[in-house]
């Protein structure tokens, strides 16, 4: 048995719980719990980044994500990994997610932190998210090519994939070289 208790007993609205494929899916997980999930036992230090307009433009260009990126939600792990919280539009509502990057630049994992849409929750399924693990900033990360689509959740899949891409672009430009 492997049991990983949550850092806090955060409140979660009743919904997709234990049956994530239902229609009215809503989920909220705290930053601390998500960090613990992606970097178990590791200490993370807040490491905000400031981006130039040129860097932002490059992220938009390579990922086609228009929403502004908030640089204050970036953490560095004690072993040199990175933890970034970001938001993209799912279908109508924002999806909040976290991306973890290993010290060697490969994707460690992604977690959905807030999902309030009625449809498309399938992006929360571990098997879909696992497709990102091991990818790097050099991967194109295109839906239907590198990442499989989920029928019925196309927009959420597309926007999350683009979101991960833009964070990897940002990692490549900014975080990779930082000490």
């Amino acid at each position, binding site marked *: 048995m492997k049991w990983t208790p949550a850092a806090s*007993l955060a*409140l*979660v609205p009743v919904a997709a719980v234990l049956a994530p494929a239902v229609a009215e899916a809503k989920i909220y*997980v705290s930053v601390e719990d998500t960090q613990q999930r992606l970097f178990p036992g590791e200490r993370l230090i807040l490491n905000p980044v400031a981006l130039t307009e040129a860097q932002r433009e490059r992220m938009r260009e390579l990922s086609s994500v228009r929403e502004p990126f908030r640089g204050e939600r970036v953490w560095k792990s004690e072993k040199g990994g990175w933890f970034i919280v970001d938001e993209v539009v799912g279908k109508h509502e924002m999806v909040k997610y976290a991306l973890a990057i290993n010290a060697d630049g490969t994707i460690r994992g992604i977690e959905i932190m807030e999902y309030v849409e009625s449809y498309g929750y399938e992006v929360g399924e*571990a098997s879909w998210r696992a497709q990102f693990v091991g990818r790097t900033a050099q991967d194109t990360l295109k839906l239907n090519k590198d990442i499989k689509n989920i029928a019925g959740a196309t927009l959420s899949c597309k926007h999350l994939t683009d979101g991960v891409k833009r964070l990897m672009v940002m990692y490549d430009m900014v975080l990779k070289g930082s000490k």
Partner: protein
Amino acid sequence: MLGTYVDIRVDHDDAARAAAALEAGFAAVARVQRCMSAFDPESDVGRINRLAVGDALDIDPWTADVLRLSLELHRASGGLFDCGIAPELAAWGMLPPAPSAIAGSSITRLSFAAAGTIRVSAPLRLDLGGIAKGYAVDRAADAMRACGARGGLINAGGDLRVFGPEQEAIHLRDPGNPARLRLAGWLGDGACATSATYFSRRDVGGHEVSALVDPRNRQPMRTRRSYSVFAPCCAVADALTKVVAVSQDAHHPCLERYDAHALILESCPERP
């Protein structure tokens, strides 16, 4: 089934065989229900509850499994887990009324004459509601694995078992408001069960009763807390929730012996 909703999810490489695995899972649950329902006079439990002192009774190997585990847990918990509390549950309208009154009904009155044969030393009224649901979940997991399932999740009204490579987020009901959930953590290859009174408590003759009974004084528990146990197998987790509830001890020595952890949730006031 089992007086609740049973939800099974399967992870299988082959869609056709995934359906077979699901079916096998539900069939295992149905067999437990057939053997161990206290509502069915023809189940093993129904027949044990009518068994005359001195007579031997042959039972299904699965019922024998659960009874052996129940006896073991009764000993290990110093009597805090006892499936003999059916007369109290019947008196409160949670089980069918008994034809005659029985005092001091306890699992200790049951013994094995052979591997699949039991006897009672005095009249016994058994209710396996505190362990059979967990056992059903375990057998469903076995059946699904035997059908080649890579992983899966079986949830019988909060008694759940996860197997396979994936971990599952476990949410517990807030005992103050069971419509609200709290994220307790992540479970891989293991079981979780919860006992509380929020769904079973009711008023009988001006007194509040519940399906959680303290076997020491045979009184219903009026607690507002909920008791969850995480253990490698669900039958044990299910039974240990009663030990934790009755002892009010999330670190009861019995837990360690079964490699289990407990979580007691307080009924929190509303907060945004």
